[in-house]
């Protein structure tokens, strides 16, 4: 459906905007895994990430009426997904003591790292306040700039930088305590 990975054609956008199922499916095939990964890291839960993805695609045709085609589609879609994930995060008010979904834990063959270390990391991420974890995920996992993060979250660039610093500090402290 798309000529270049990550770049949706105008025709595809037009058809998705009109709600054509095959156009939505093409976008889903192209971007679904990346969006799922983003939503999972933001919400910390596979079930919530699935709900986020569900809501994004359920509302995508209407949201596309606000999409300017001179911008890259992939980043726009990730920004939309981030905002829906944040809404989800706030609505569910995830409790820190609830573990990440063990049953839905992704299988990552050859990912490296022993199970104990992965478990420590998960615990550390879980302890991190949402605001800090989101900035960390967007910056360090998604590779967004502080300006992009600030635009998505509605905060100042300086605030984004401070939160990243605190997130790293917090993760290191939690990992050290865990050790």
């Amino acid at each position, binding site marked *: 459906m798309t000529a270049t990975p990550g770049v949706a054609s105008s025709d595809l956008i037009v058809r998705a905007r009109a709600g054509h199922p095959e156009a939505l499916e093409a976008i889903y095939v192209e971007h679904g895994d990346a969006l799922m990964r983003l939503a999972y890291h933001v919400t910390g839960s596979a079930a919530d990430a699935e709900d986020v993805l569900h809501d994004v695609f359920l509302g995508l045709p209407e949201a596309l009426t*606000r999409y300017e085609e001179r911008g890259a589609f992939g980043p726009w879609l990730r920004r939309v997904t981030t905002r829906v994930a944040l809404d989800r995060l706030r609505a569910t008010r995830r409790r820190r003591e609830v573990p990440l979904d063990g049953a839905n834990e992704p299988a990552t063959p050859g990912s490296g790292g022993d199970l104990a270390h992965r478990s420590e990391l998960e615990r550390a991420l879980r302890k991190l306040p949402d605001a800090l974890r989101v900035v960390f995920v967007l910056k360090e996992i998604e590779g967004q700039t502080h300006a992009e993060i600030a635009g998505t979250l509605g905060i100042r660039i300086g605030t984004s930088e401070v939160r990243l610093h605190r997130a790293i500090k917090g993760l290191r402290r939690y990992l050290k305590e865990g050790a």
Partner: protein
Amino acid sequence: MTRHSDADQAAAELRGAIEALGAPRAPRGLIGRVAAERARGLRAAIRGGEPASPPVVRRPVLWGAAALLVVGLVGIDRWPSVEEPAAEDAFLGGCGMNADARSWLAAGSLLLAAACAQEPDQSPFEPAAALAELQAGTLRPGTWVYELEHAGRFLSREVYRLTPVRLIDGLQWRSVNTRDGTDRVLADTMYYSADLRPLRQAWHTLRDGKDWRIVELVYGPTTVQMTSDYVDYRGPTPQRRTWWSRTADIPADPGPIVPGIHSPGLVYLMRLLPLRAGWSGSVQAGPFGTATFRLTSLRVVGEETIRVPAGEFDCWRVAMGAGPTGFQTLWVSKAERLLVRSRIGPEARGLEWGLKSFTPGD
């Protein structure tokens, strides 16, 4: 300088470690479920990227939002206190989705205004010349069973059971509907007046046998109140929490109302329409997630004999223009006015409901 170096090094270590955690892949059946839900008229009001252009401001919408705002601020003291996250967690304070109920209400009102202001004015389909008129007295109880397929793959089995409810002051119709076939089961109950005007509806999305989301619609004379709740199972006792709530205005002199594109309401409506060669009429489809109804045109465009799991039927082929969601084709049996097939999208890759059985009720 040293502190920055340490931070950069720590970030690099953590980045590598967290990437190694991986993430689940996008579930394969999700997009089919989304397509089916959109076909039924469900929408999600999500926040998109930057607006393409300044929204068209509609004065009534702004007045409505202002009214909601005032009501919310005046009545705020009666709101139950909500859990306040740490100050650091209020990261979207500027966008209004703070944990404070007051700003939540204010932001909700403004978002509602923004969403409605950008709603397209017109359906791309030309409405029929007149509102559809219903034939009185042709609605009968019964049970319809449909199979929904997407691109030829089975998605779900849908059962609509229509029964009369005799009240002191008249008759109502109750439709109990279930949809299964995925990991989530959708069950809803709809009530209609004797002339098939929707009265109220409650959708329950069940997951592992438990309530997951609940959407309720209560129809008044001029408005529809829509509330979407979810059940939070994370605490010691399950708690029902509101996800969103909004009000849709019912158009003046709306004609028949069809809740959703493919819904029990559409199935029952077919029994009451005076279909014949060349007939056309309009109905109001909705309300959709953006709290709007869409004037939707129905036209008899041909006759066809088709085969579905329930058997072979001589049908009217009806084209339905349903706003930006595309074009839907309905096949309605001439003899009993059964909706025996409906399709959205191309034949090979679209969504298709086929009648599996129909059992007349008592």
